[in-house]
């Protein structure tokens, strides 16, 4: 894995999500009554019947951008691929893509891989989406 994610720590609202990433699960909220999948950042209504559930961790690229981060020493800029993934369950997820910055990623099938965001015990694993073929091959 070549992708580097800067350290992220959990807070109360994101704890259940990061419990999932720690064991290789992309968790979404699901409304029990309708089966609808909701973004994990959804602010729960006390009257709502939401539960955490493991999603497939697959999706397709809705859009992508290659961010150029200028090197401090004046060298070649780092090219970071970010994008929006439409998850198989419907919600969109904005994330790092571990993909060729020169490739056409339009509607590319992708799969989540979980990358440690830092060396400390409180640095959570963060989902990064890679081309599904490559991610499957690496398994």
């Amino acid at each position, binding site marked *: 894995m070549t992708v580097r994610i800067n350290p992220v720590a959990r807070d109360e609202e994101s704890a259940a999500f990061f419990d999932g990433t720690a064991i290789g699960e992309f968790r979404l909220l699901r409304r029990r009554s309708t089966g609808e999948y909701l973004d994990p950042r959804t602010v729960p209504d006390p009257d709502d019947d939401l539960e955490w559930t493991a999603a497939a961790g697959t999706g397709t690229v809705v859009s992508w951008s290659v961010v150029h981060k200028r090197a401090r020493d004046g060298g070649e*800029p780092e090219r970071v691929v970010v994008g929006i993934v439409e998850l198989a369950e419907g919600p969109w997820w904005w994330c790092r893509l571990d993909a060729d910055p020169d490739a056409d990623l339009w509607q590319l099938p992708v799969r989540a891989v979980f990358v440690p965001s830092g060396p400390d015990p409180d640095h959570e694993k963060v989902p990064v989406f890679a081309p599904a073929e490559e991610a499957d091959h690496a398994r």
Partner: protein
Amino acid sequence: MTSRRETPARRRAAIAGLGLTELGKVYGPSARQFAAQAVRRAADDAGIGLSDIDGLLVSAGTTPGVDLSLQVDLGLRDLRMFTQMQAFGSTAGAMVQYAAMAVEAGMADTVACVFADAPLKQGKATGAAYGGRRVTPTGWGSLLGSSGFAGPNSFYALAARRHMKTYGTTSEQLGAIAVAQRAWAAKNPLAQLREPITLADHQASRFIAEPFHLLDCCLVSNGGAAVIVTSAERAATMAQPAVQVLGWGQAHPGNSFRRNDNLGLVSGAAQSGPAAMEMAGVTIEDIDVAEIYDCYTFTALLTLEDYGFCGKGEGGEFVATPGMLGPDGKLAVNTGGGQLSSYYLWGMTPLSEAIIQARGQGGERQVPKHDTVLVSGNGGILDHHSTLVLGTEG
């Protein structure tokens, strides 16, 4: 619906004053000081005293201090209306709308609307101007930054890419907007960047967030701008040609970015533009000058589409049509150079140029026909839109 053109002029609001501070890499004054200076200049421009102001709407950019303390800074007594507003880049247009409603309702007679910001610090790179706003690296708020997203540049780049892939819009077509606006800026003494550029310059400029090159992105500026809104009747007695507020609209689509939505495809301009034109009793063919919010080239392209200057998805071809944009072009768009080349004061950039053009005070860049001027504001990641139709016809 009866358009405002058919209602008596005495019930209408008009813009009677415009105040601009020094703009761009101007170091020293705080945003709060820019705000006070802009209001003073707007009052001077209108030919009134500060004590004539009985309503005040204030809006800050990214730097603090532009708030309700402005009343005391200006020594204003007994205001009848006073509010701090925030709808990001759509705020300036929205302020004029609320000011117009207050004037027409008799709540206030003379309302100053002001925006100021001072994100640039001397000796600090322009690109780092907004760097102080990083969230702490915990929870949801930390995920995007930690994953490599770089603020509005990457969000708008994702929106633009979706339009490009859906409709075939190209980087060269976006570049046509940058080139045209720079040609206008060359004629604008207020503009920060006045050296002409070519499409090749646009293509060769470094990438910020692909598909955006540097020349697709707006400037960062320090400064302030204020306008004075009063009744059309009173405005007619003041120092400047009155600019009537003929119509307006807002749209806040409520894009969640959490599930399939119109990000990059359709913006709130699609609602606020037609609403404003209907209120004004005009159609797109009546628009002489369009001052379009252009935090990026793409924002201008999408707004032109959504306002109906061309069909949905045809914006790229439209803006790149030879003879369409730029000085002497068929369509007068962003005649001061916009936020890409002139100055970046959120919605005050298109609004201020609209007032200058409507009054016929554009000097070398003045558009011959300027009776009906369309102004857009856009805020957030295409989240908030405001539209004004301004006019100088009786």
